[in-house]
């Protein structure tokens, strides 16, 4: 078992081991959905919610179903099926009981199935040998870290609308450079907490 305290995992996965800025996961939706702060907050919240639930669910299924049956190699298929199924379920429940929330977050839910940060969180959980509480903390921290990064990016992009970017640099190139600067800023937290 991994001895790190869940609190440390939570804070570290938001700041020093940010799933997006240090782990490069979820770049596709990060680049595509960061044009407006409002959209970014919506996607970030949906990712956080799904990530907490699926990492915990995947933890339980992996350790109580796959490991006893010695079917660990099926983990990839199990994780992706759980994520897709869970997202579908949440979408249906949300539409039925909370149409308001559905209209705010609903459009992002299908996107989340293919968000590699969600699958990445489940895989990291297995590789780092987290227990149940640590996995939940990691899911929450990972989601919040994603939310923080994408909202920061959206804010910068809204400002960037007024600046004159050289033509070949427009689009992905400049976004990559900005993400690099954000990642460098986050490295400033490195001395604060270390996580294995």
């Amino acid at each position, binding site marked *: 078992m991994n001895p790190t305290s869940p609190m440390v995992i939570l804070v570290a996965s938001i700041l020093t081991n940010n799933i997006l800025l240090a782990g490069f996961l979820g770049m596709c939706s990060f680049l595509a959905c960061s044009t407006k702060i409002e959209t970014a907050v919506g996607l970030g919240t949906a990712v956080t919610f799904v990530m907490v639930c699926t990492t915990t669910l995947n933890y339980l299924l992996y350790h109580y179903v796959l490991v006893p049956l010695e079917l660990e190699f099926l983990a990839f298929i199990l994780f992706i099926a759980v994520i897709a199924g869970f997202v579908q379920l949440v979408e249906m429940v949300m539409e039925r009981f909370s149409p308001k929330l559905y209209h705010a977050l609903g459009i992002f839910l299908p996107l989340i199935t293919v968000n590699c940060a969600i699958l990445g969180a489940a895989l990291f959980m297995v590789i780092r040998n987290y227990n149940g509480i640590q996995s939940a903390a990691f899911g929450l921290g990972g989601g919040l870290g994603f939310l923080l990064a994408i909202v920061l990016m959206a804010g910068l992009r809204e400002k960037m609308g007024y600046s004159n970017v050289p033509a070949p640099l427009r689009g992905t190139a400049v976004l990559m450079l900005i993400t*690099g600067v954000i990642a460098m800023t986050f490295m400033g937290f490195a001395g604060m907490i270390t996580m294995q």
Partner: protein
Amino acid sequence: MSDHHAQAKSSGCGGLCGGKCGSTIQDGVIKNNPIIHQVLGVCSALAVTSKLENALVMGAALVFVTAMSNAFVSLLRHLMPRRIRMIVEVAIIATFVIIFDQFLKAFYWDMSKQLGPYVGLIITNCIVMGRAEAFATQNPPLLSIVDGAANGIGYMIILALIAVFRELLGAGTLLGYTALSTAWYEPNVLLMLAPGAFFTAGFLIWIINALRGRKDV
């Protein structure tokens, strides 16, 4: 280098897939390069490029998975009900990713540990899914294999470019061998860290766009 590769391959199998082979390869490797042109699969492109060796293995994984899953999706394209085709595609892709992952674990344990979760993440790599959905569902199996492999090779070339730059300047080595002696070269460790990956990718896309003379967005 990429030009040469594309031509060498197209002359070999042009007859097999009705002459469309060459253009398919060129599309995948150069014209519509999945990373540079369509910005797909950037996650792993950034994560595994701190060493050239890792980048090449990851590229090989993608060539294998994309080609094989394209082949099977293409074989099943008339049998798959449209409503559930996504699930079928994901299951096919996941199967090949598991095969590759088990292969790495069995024969190259160190490499498997270094790549960590990024091998598993090929499942959500948009390139694989994108090719299965956009190409393999409408084309015969052989041509689909070629298309998958071409896109994989396009991906591999970009990964290798980023990795050469990062490993050479970040650690002074190439494939583990010392290329820039530390006697006179001070390695720039930033390139090995996360921000270095973003900067390298950003500059690479910038340079390629500039060379292509792109004016609009």
